[in-house]
Every structure is written in structure tokens, then in C-alpha cells.
């Protein structure tokens, strides 16, 4: 399971994976667990996934991105219980030029949010628990289409 991780994410390791002497520009993105959601204080958060598909979909996103831009991509998403401030997702993209690295990094996080089957359940300070959806799903019917 190379894309999903149940241990803390290591951005420096991802950067090392993609960097090379001819790829001098590295763009990265890290998404961390926020302390509020919809005005309510979040105590902790659990990510779960449809593991086999999440791995396949992440693999497709990386492959499509590396075909579209001359870059190398490394990507990890955390699953399980996370504390506030911990990284949920980390992406590193290296290319010869920063234009490509930034564009490809942005593409990877957008596609991940749109396509990879991962869910989160937040526990709030008042003890209530809730599945959190980004509202991406209903319109998305094929990997190539926009909702």
C-alpha cells in the first residue's frame, strides 16, 4: 500500500524520492488537520479509505500527471486516527522548471480530492461525531469528467 500510510507522513522523504540533479524545482503541498470545521471545534479526526481503490486511483493520478508534465510525483495520504495539526496528505513534485512543478502539484491535490475514495469522521469538542463530505460525489460519474 504505497500511497496510504497509517504512520506520520514524511515530506522530506517524499522530496528525496522525486528530486534529481536535472529536476531542480520542487513544489510541495501538505494538508493538515484543522481545529475547526463549520465553526465547531474539532477534537480529533479519523480517515478511512476503500484501500484497494484508493491505491489504484492514486497510482492513476500519479501516472496521468507524469504523462502530462515532465515531472516526478510522490504522494501519501494518512489513514487512521489523526491529531489536530498532523499532516493528512503530503505531495512532492519535482521538475526542471517551477511552472511545471507548481501546475502538476496543484493538479495532484485537486484530483486526489475529487477521485480518491477516502472519508473522514470528525469528533467535536462536544463529543458528537460526524462524517464529513466535501460534496464532490454525486456529479462525479467517470474519472475523466468534472462534477
Amino acid at each position: 500500500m504505497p500511497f496510504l500510510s497509517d504512520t506520520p507522513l514524511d515530506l522530506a522523504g517524499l522530496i528525496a524520492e522525486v528530486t534529481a540533479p536535472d529536476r531542480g524545482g520542487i513544489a510541495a503541498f501538505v494538508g493538515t488537520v484543522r481545529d475547526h470545521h463549520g465553526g465547531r471545534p474539532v477534537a480529533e479526526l479519523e480517515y478511512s479509505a476503500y484501500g484497494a481503490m484508493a491505491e489504484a486511483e492514486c497510482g492513476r493520478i500519479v501516472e496521468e500527471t507524469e504523462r502530462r508534465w515532465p515531472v516526478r510525483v510522490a504522494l501519501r495520504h494518512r489513514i487512521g486516527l489523526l491529531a489536530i495539526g498532523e499532516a493528512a496528505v503530503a505531495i512532492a513534485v519535482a521538475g526542471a522548471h517551477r511552472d511545471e512543478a507548481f501546475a502538476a502539484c496543484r493538479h495532484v491535490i485537486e484530483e486526489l480530492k475529487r477521485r480518491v475514495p477516502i472519508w473522514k469522521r470528525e469528533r467535536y469538542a462536544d463529543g458528537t461525531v460526524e462524517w464529513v463530505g466535501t460534496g464532490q460525489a454525486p456529479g462525479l460519474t467517470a474519472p475523466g469528467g468534472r462534477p
Partner: protein
Amino acid sequence: MVTTASTTVHILLFASYAERLGLERIDAALRPGATVADALAYLRALPGGAELPARPLCARNLAHVGADAALADGDELAVLPPLAGG
């Protein structure tokens, strides 16, 4: 030639949908030529199934598909609540 064999589809439910229907997996025997929409109709007839949205996100054999996609015997169909990765 008319085939009388049914199409067995392994349906997976996740997260809030698994909670609403109280199950994570069910094997459905559908008519040959059934589509994703037929499998969803099957789910809607189950207890809690009426709570599924009109057009939930679905994946067949680990890839996103639309409601009109055909299902073959042995296919895995996952019904996915709104995604929240990232």
C-alpha cells in the same frame, strides 16, 4: 440463446452509507445485463436503502463508473459517500 444464469455482484458500502444500511458488503444476484442503476435499485429496497442519494458515486472493479455502466458476473461494485480526502 437465453441464459438463465444470474449475475452475482459483490457490493461494497463505505463510511456513512455502510452505517445507514448497517452493512459493508452484500452479494446481489441481478438479472444478466444488469447495470449499476439496477444494483442501486436493489440496495434501495434494503432496510435503510431509501436514504441513499439519487445518484451516488460508484466504482466498478476499482474505477469510477456511471449509473449506466454494465455489470458482469463477479464484478465488485462500490457505492461511495462524498469523498473527503486531502
